[in-house]
């Protein structure tokens, strides 16, 4: 089997497996996997910027929240139907990520991390400041009646799973296509040696800008879906915590691999889920996992597999 065919079989196989899985899963895990697929889409968006372009952002919660509130506020206060509201959320994410990219891409390294962190924090505080509309930390519930798209009730578990699966499939395929296209190859080249790429005549700024907007838009789509599918939008989704989580998932699964974000999200989700059965200290486990990863597996799970033989993994 050629490499290209192998890649297609693996990724489409995963999508098919997830599609079939919902018919056999017990209700509890059924709900978990739906949630994981939305969060993994967020991680896929994050990975395009961090894993492939080599830009470590600590502010992706800003894009996630832009999607969530772009969707939630238009439903809540402007009486939009869910489908156009999702579109508003995605456009809000694209606009916010483009604006932040124009500022933050003037910096590199640690400064880039801090600039993204600062603007995301300003975004979080802005959500709190306009508590009259956003209801701040408390958040607001999107009623089941407001979550019906073209006659499909998204508060129903099966429909919710399908919607989450569709989002995940689209994100995964976009990521797979992007990283195998010349554009994605250039991003990897920028990650490895930006000076050389510039010397070869590429406009590295334009590439990084596009990567950040694509990354932010996917994150916003995930945010909008998360709010709509689970019927809630709150300020905690804009907090630093939600900027660090995708970083954690991607690092755990393997930065710069298409499947890494999904594997990392599943791993982390069930690690916390299973450990919270034993102890309430799930943050402790996340902390230990992070420290252990930086020490022992800087490549992540899929990254380790790739390094130890499966070099064809995209």
């Amino acid at each position, binding site marked *: 089997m050629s490499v290209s065919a192998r890649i297609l079989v693996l990724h489409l196989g995963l999508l098919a497996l997830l599609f079939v899985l919902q018919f056999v899963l017990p209700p509890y895990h059924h709900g978990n996997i739906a949630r994981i697929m939305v969060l993994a889409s967020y991680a896929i968006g994050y990975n395009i910027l961090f894993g492939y372009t080599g830009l470590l952002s600590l502010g992706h919660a800003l894009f996630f929240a832009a999607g969530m509130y772009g969707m939630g506020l238009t439903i809540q206060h402007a009486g939009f139907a869910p489908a156009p509201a999702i579109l508003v959320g995605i456009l809000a994410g694209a606009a916010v990520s483009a604006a932040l990219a124009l500022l933050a891409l003037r910096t590199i390294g640690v400064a880039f991390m801090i600039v993204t962190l600062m603007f995301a924090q300003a975004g979080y505080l802005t959500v709190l400041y306009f508590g009259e509309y956003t209801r701040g930390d408390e958040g607001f519930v999107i009623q089941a009646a407001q979550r019906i798209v073209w006659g499909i009730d998204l508060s129903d578990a099966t429909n919710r799973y399908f919607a989450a699966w569709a989002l995940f499939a689209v994100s995964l395929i976009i990521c797979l296509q992007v990283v195998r296209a010349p554009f994605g190859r250039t991003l990897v080249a920028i990650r490895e040696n930006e000076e050389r790429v510039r010397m070869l005549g590429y406009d590295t700024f334009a590439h990084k800008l596009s990567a950040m907007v694509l990354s932010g838009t996917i994150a916003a789509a995930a945010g909008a879906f998360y709010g709509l599918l689970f019927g809630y939008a709150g300020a905690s989704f804009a907090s630093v915590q939600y900027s660090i989580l995708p970083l954690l998932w991607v690092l755990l699964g393997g930065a710069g691999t298409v499947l890494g974000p999904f594997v990392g999200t599943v791993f982390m989700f069930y690690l916390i889920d299973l450990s919270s059965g034993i102890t309430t200290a799930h943050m402790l486990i996340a*902390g230990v996992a992070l420290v252990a990863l930086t020490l022992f597996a*800087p490549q992540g799970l899929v990254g380790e597999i790739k390094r130890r033989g499966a070099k064809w993994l995209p």
Partner: protein
Amino acid sequence: MELGPYILLATLEGAVTAAVLALTAVGLSLVFGVMRVVNIAHGEFFMLGAVIAWYVAHYMGGHPALGFVAALVLAPLLVGGLAVAADMTILKRIEYDPERTIVATIGLLYIIQQLTLMTYGPEARPVEPPFNERIALPWFEFGEDGRDFYYPWGLSTTSYKLAVIGAAAAVLAGVWAMMTRTKVGLLMRATQADREMALAFGIPVERVYAIVFGIGAELDINHSFLYLFMVIIGGLGSLPGTVVAAIIIGLSDGIISVFFSPTLAKILATLLVGLVLVFRPQGLFGTRAA
């Protein structure tokens, strides 16, 4: 109250904030300047200092002042020891790689937060300061018979707050003197140029670090982001810049909080930091890094 006393009150509150911010930010600035790593868990070390201070003060019998002094001595030492341990077991092993350091210190942040929650609990507990008299402040107005002093209602501060400002100024002066006048300071400045050497001087850094935690221990510990602000606005690694930035942010935070809203003050401060980094990455006072 009229506007005048109001502004004085806001300035005083701001000055206390500025004092504490300056102390913590100087610790962070030292670590960044000398070791070139950003410690995301810095705020947690600060919190840990406060928590240990509470334990020491609480379980030390005798006069309250005794417990307070013991806390002031023990908390910095214990936190410093922990920071040294983290440095040797984790940061040294990842060779102070900037990105991996950030990830590892985020991990540390979670661990410290969770352990504190499990042992100490989420509620705030005060450390009893040895003196805390309320001092009413006079204000004057021009009446019919010349200048007239009076004490407006609500315009007051406490002796402890003034002592905090004084202590902060003393420690800052001490740090500055250490950096410019002593051999240790000379060595630390030398390490800015040679990262390899930073390890050898880890302990002075952590000690300064820890003194900072202990002194700020009694005050509000919910400032997680503000330390970064000072350091960035002042210029990474520039001590005078950091102090000036702390004073600017502390004072404006106090004044905007009193007149508008604390959230708005934080939003403006955060945006300011972001924009300074974008348009003046060396900070307002820093020199451009090599």
